[in-house]
């Protein structure tokens, strides 16, 4: 399968430093952001940005389109909600439990899904996620249509009071930065280079002696775990885990965020999550039209705008540099 079309050219090593300075700048902006923007909104953006980053690790760097990432996001939200509310665990343990469970779910579903490629991979992940959805509808601990509500916000590490939105915002920012650094480290490691090789030409990677199945599985588990971390954090921020989090619409939403921001770019998913969450916020009053507008964005981006916002910016910058040089 030719994935070259779907992703941008891999970034040269010099880009590493540039990425880190952009990250440092973003973190600086994020630190002062709650002075002007409502912190709960910012926390939502950060959770979904981490979710989209985890998804992008698969589509952008391994060339696998997962259409079922909501099972990790929503599954982890239920787990952390349950252990924090019913078992009385602290939030950091709750998030950890959600992340670990998502990783285990990723291991089981990944073993099955990587047996097929391309379009079948997308269908298999979608079907497996639907199975998890039906499980969550029936399982006794998920609360059915109501979900798990009023998840308590206990002090994290016994120190910081999470009932204060501003304090919690910085905790979420720390979790997000950790997740970003894990992904950034992964894609710049030798492991990440092998993933890119698999994306570009899988038979060739096999002929070079790489066990591509193991690489794909590890990337899948990592992506699942980080998606789970995002979902678990989201559950504690909004004190809610519900069926929306595991539905196929949620899987579609994360695809949309990544597509809008730019698949295979380092910062694209963050931009995409920001754009889509902002849009949902402003359009909340339009009810059903939100889905229609999301559909229109899908169609427009796929037809005219495949590189996404960050991808188009990078291409524009590249052209400018070429003209100068």
């Amino acid at each position, binding site marked *: 399968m030719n994935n070259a079309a779907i992703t941008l050219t891999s970034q040269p090593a010099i880009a590493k430093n540039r990425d880190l300075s952009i990250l440092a700048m973003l973190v600086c902006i994020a630190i002062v952001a709650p002075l002007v923007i409502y912190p709960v909104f910012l926390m939502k953006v950060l959770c979904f940005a981490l979710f989209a980053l985890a998804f992008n690790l698969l589509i952008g760097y391994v060339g696998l389109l997962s259409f079922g990432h909501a099972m990790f996001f929503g599954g982890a939200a239920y787990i952390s909600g349950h252990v924090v509310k019913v078992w009385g665990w602290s939030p950091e343990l709750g998030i950890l439990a959600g992340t670990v469970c998502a990783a285990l779910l990723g291991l089981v579903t990944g073993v*099955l899904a990587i*047996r097929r490629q391309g379009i079948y991979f997308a269908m298999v992940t979608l*079907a*497996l996620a*639907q199975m998890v959805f039906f499980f969550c509808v029936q399982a006794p601990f998920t609360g059915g249509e109501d979900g798990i509500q009023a998840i308590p916000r206990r002090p994290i590490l016994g120190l910081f009071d999470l009932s204060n939105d501003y304090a919690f915002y910085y905790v979420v920012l720390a979790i997000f930065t950790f997740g970003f650094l894990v992904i950034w480290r992964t894609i710049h490691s030798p492991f990440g280079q092998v993933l890119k090789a698999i994306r570009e030409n899988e038979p060739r990677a096999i002929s070079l002696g790489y066990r591509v199945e193991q690489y794909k599985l590890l990337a899948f588990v990592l992506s699942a775990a980080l998606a789970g971390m995002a979902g678990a954090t989201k559950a504690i921020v909004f004190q809610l885990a519900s069926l929306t989090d595991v539905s196929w619409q949620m899987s579609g939403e994360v695809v949309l965020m990544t597509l809008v921001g730019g698949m295979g770019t380092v910062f694209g998913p963050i931009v995409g999550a920001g754009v889509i969450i902002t849009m949902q916020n402003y359009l909340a009053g339009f009810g*059903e039209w939100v*889905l*229609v507008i999301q559909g229109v964005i899908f169609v427009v981006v796929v037809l005219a705008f495949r590189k996404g916002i960050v991808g188009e910016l990078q291409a524009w910058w590249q052209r400018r540099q070429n003209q100068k040089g």
Partner: protein
Amino acid sequence: MFELLGIPPQALFGQLLLGLINGAFYAMLSLGLAVIFGLLNVINFTHGAQYMMGAFAAWMLLEWAGVPYWGALVIAPIVVGAIGIAMERLFLRHLYHLDHLYGLLLTFGLALIIEGVFRKQFGSTGLPYANPLPGGTRLDFMFLPWYRAWIVAASLAICLGTWFMIERTKLGSYLRAATERPDLVQAFGINVPRMITLTYGFGVGLAALAGVLAAPAYNVNPLMGSNLIIIVFAVVVIGGMGSIMGAIVTGFALGIIEGLTKVFYPEASNTVIFIIMAIVLMLKPAGLFGTPK
């Protein structure tokens, strides 16, 4: 034997019949998906929405124009198929040179748009459609409603007719040839782009026809398609998309298995198809009728 299992035969055969009907819809939809994928290399995520449009077309024809069910059975697939042709001309054909995944993403977006518009217009509770064949007959072991018998018979005829057309006619041989080597077929003077458009229209029309058949059996509901399409994807993964007959057999068989699960272990009836998919992926990753690539 039935007494041993503690299940009355009426319940068993009733669920078997319901399973057979579900299977009929799985078979018709996965057939359309397979035909479209064969020629266009696009997984048509809009398939569920087009099935729903077929059902709504029947409802609108009845409520707004007074066209009865039997007329809708002919008109609705043609109308929805024509809309499908317009969609292929406007959107899909710009993506054939790209990765298959973009086709999936585009049709997903189109499905969201169609579903959203219908939900806005008709709500999500569903609208009733009068049964055109009321009544039924009492057999020794169960009551057989006429309309359910009609669904099974009609869908079998549609599936076998499609199979015959593709595998046994001259037109079908062009289609199969274009699936293998579109460039060569084009060189022999056949208009392949037009064939692609018509094939998409045909696949969409098939989905709409299934929608019309479904309208009296279930409520006409904007969400009826998206609930079904994910199961149909699992059916396609189980069967593999290489064979027309494979798609038909897998569809009916899985419907029956699902029906039986409702009798013996109802908790798993929603998930049994996905579990079978997982088992098939472990044992025969290419699908039961697929060929490994």
